[in-house]
């Protein structure tokens, strides 16, 4: 741990045996929903977890709110609350930590531990897995949380163990144990989609594999490593190794030296969670900057907090794609909230916070950000959209969508955010092909009236201006009369003629648009339709 140990990439390492504990649909379980109640937890308008009753009704993760409600109209929609998930999961972590102290929490509902020691102690992988199942189920029962059967998987390598655990909860009752050395053959028949499910590959990469005809992990593993590297870079090489049952730690993973860890001792005990989290942000920034300076990224971090009364909380957090600063802060928050929620665990203020990078690898540039991943601001905004929709109604919260058209009010419109895809807005926003002749030229008006304001446009003598069908203006416009008050015009141009849907008599429209500037310098877009004038928009 103290001395950096460089492991040459060519030496094949023994893939460690890992146990994964997977609590299916944890966000719903943590919310305390009874299994007979159809409920789903949404993040950014997408279902991320659902109760067994909702699953029976056909609600799937990834569904939009509307799709889910169509499958199951009586569905109870819950907001995603990561703090609640972490708080409830803390009891599970504590119970498992009594069996084996060295465990990694990947996220609330999902933890991994090294199988070798505890497995020997408890008499084999099966015995260990059964024991873990019993312990976790016991904790959930004591908390009064109803869950689908907990999945426990044992295999060589974190990925195989996690897939085994996740399949265990749906395919077989009881733990899934993959015999030593069998991980590659176990994975071979499974779809490549699992790489995305366990967070090791970006969705785009998995989609690309499927389009190339590589539908199973076996197909992918059968390709020569060199070819995969040439085509997909280091991200491809990583998943190629995983598909063949290899180690999730890439060659070149080092145990970082102690001086890379960062800590802050508080002169006076801090009792406010927000203050500790604020400091955690600074420490995490420092840590990530130190590592990034050497082209490295941390995949496993140990967070240690101590109080004035000597209580201590230590957790290891793992993330396959590397821990960004905001990801570390999020985990510190989970850990502290879980700690606070334990009765009697915390009696004084926090006096020390330490972040220890435990597993570090070269940053190959395959972080999710490059694939269009989401930032903290995106997550906050999407959560806020869900919350605002819940508070003020679906029609009150809107996002823009391209509709196309010649009038400013037609081109972009507001659509309900509840029905829109916030994660991938390209389909909603990309202007379609083809020009829209007759539209007014750029720049576009900055205020587009939802209800056009009726006005009069008059000439020097105060007579109404008429526009012929060919766009000829009866006289030069001299003033705009708004609610009886005349505003002289300094400049005007037009018309931009729109002759819409002439083939459909009932929806046929002929509109002549003009740009005008009044003598106080304000510019408007006005339009004449059947000799009635309107202000459509203002260039404010």
């Amino acid at each position, binding site marked *: 741990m103290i001395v950096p140990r460089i492991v040459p990439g060519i030496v094949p390492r023994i893939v460690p045996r890992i146990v994964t504990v997977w609590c299916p649909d944890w966000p719903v379980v943590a919310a305390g929903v009874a299994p007979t109640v159809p409920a789903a937890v949404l993040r950014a308008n997408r279902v991320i977890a659902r109760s067994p009753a909702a699953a029976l009704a056909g609600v799937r993760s990834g569904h939009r709110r509307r799709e889910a409600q169509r499958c199951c109209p009586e569905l109870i929609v819950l907001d995603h609350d990561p703090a609640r998930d972490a708080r409830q999961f803390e009891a599970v972590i504590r119970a498992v930590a009594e069996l084996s102290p060295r465990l990694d929490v990947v996220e609330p509902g999902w933890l991994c531990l090294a199988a070798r020691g505890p497995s020997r102690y408890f008499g084999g992988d099966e015995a260990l897995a059964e024991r873990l199942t019993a312990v976790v189920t016991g904790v959930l029962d004591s908390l009064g949380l109803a869950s689908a059967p907990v999945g426990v998987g044992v295999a060589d390598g974190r990925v195989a163990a996690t897939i085994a655990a996740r399949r265990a909860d749906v395919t077989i009752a009881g733990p899934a144990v993959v015999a030593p050395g069998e991980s590659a053959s176990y994975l071979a028949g499974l779809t490549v989609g699992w790489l995305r499910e366990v967070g090791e590959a970006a969705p785009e990469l998995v989609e690309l594999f499927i389009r190339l005809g590589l539908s199973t992990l076996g197909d992918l593993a059968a390709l020569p490593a060199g070819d995969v590297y040439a085509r997909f870079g280091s991200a491809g090489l990583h998943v190629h190794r995983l598909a063949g049952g290899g180690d999730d730690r890439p060659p070149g993973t080092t145990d970082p030296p102690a001086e890379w860890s960062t800590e802050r001792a508080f002169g006076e005990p801090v009792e406010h969670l927000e203050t500790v989290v604020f400091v955690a942000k600074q420490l995490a920034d420092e840590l990530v900057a130190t590592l990034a300076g050497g082209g490295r990224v941390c995949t496993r971090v140990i967070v240690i907090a101590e109080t004035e009364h000597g209580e201590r909380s230590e957790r290891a957090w793992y993330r396959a794609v590397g821990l960004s600063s905001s990801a570390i802060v999020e985990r510190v928050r989970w850990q502290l909230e879980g700690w606070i929620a334990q009765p009697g665990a915390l009696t004084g203020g926090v006096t020390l916070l330490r972040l220890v990078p435990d597993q570090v690898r070269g940053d190959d540039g395959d972080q999710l950000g490059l694939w269009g991943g989401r930032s903290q601001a995106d997550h906050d905004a999407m959560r806020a959209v869900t919350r605002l929709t819940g508070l003020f109604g679906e029609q009150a*919260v809107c996002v823009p969508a391209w509709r196309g058209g010649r009038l400013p009010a037609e081109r972009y419109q*507001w659509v309900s955010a509840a029905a829109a895809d916030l994660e991938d807005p390209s389909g909603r926003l990309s202007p379609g092909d083809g020009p829209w002749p007759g539209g007014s030229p750029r720049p576009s008006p900055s205020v587009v009236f939802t209800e056009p304001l009726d006005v009069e446009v008059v000439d020097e003598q105060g007579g109404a201006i008429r526009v012929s069908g060919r766009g000829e203006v009866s006289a030069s416009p001299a003033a705009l009369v708004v609610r009886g008050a005349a505003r002289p015009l300094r400049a005007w141009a037009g018309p931009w003629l729109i002759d819409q849907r002439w083939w459909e008599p009932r929806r046929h429209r002929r509109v002549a648009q003009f740009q005008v500037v009044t003598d106080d310098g304000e510019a408007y877009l006005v339009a004449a339709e059947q000799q009635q004038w309107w202000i459509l928009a203002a260039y404010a």
Partner: protein
Amino acid sequence: MDLARVDVTSSITLAHDRYLPVDEAFAALLPDPGLVRGRIVACTGAAATSLALALASRATTTGSWLAVVGMAPIGIEAARELGVAIDRLVSIDADACRPDEWADRVATAADGFELVLTVPPTGPPTGPPTRAERVFRKVRQRVQARGVVLLIVDSGASHSGAGADMVLEVTAGEWEGLGRGHGHLFRRRVVVRAGGRRVPRPVERELWLPGIAGRPELIEPATTVATATAGNIELERAG
């Protein structure tokens, strides 16, 4: 506790944590390198809406989200032309005649969006005169606590400018490109004056808003043509 707090706040904070970036055109106008988080910026005058959108544009392209509260008529296409990333644009309805509802929605939006753009309620004062102030104070507290930048578009109807940390006033605006019966709106020369409580020395600059490409552009004050035009505008204002 207090000691710890002092310890926390005295350490270095990154520029990203204090400011939201703005377009280069505003560099000479603003007293800070960007929009300071936790502050209220009022945009007033004829080009207030364009100015507020242009101020928000750079931050939206670097990942911040912009919520417009009670401003459904905003021109989405104009926002895009001014440089706003409209995939990070969200509109929240609010009734301008109900100050409490407005404050509630602005405060809730401040929880999740780094930029909030709104028009303050204009309805007739229904309660005692302190009510509007109280409502505004609630919004201010939330904006400061969450490190949000609140942009207020005020075309002169209300008097929220008094509560803002910085007031950007468009004192003159002149469209180019439109003649009498020919041409089309092309670009607009505006004079913007930055003042307010947090601006030690008021600054006045000329900008194209929008410029030729849609985005704002600074007009260098050194050229003689620009000074002459500025003089004309001064005269117009005086007259």
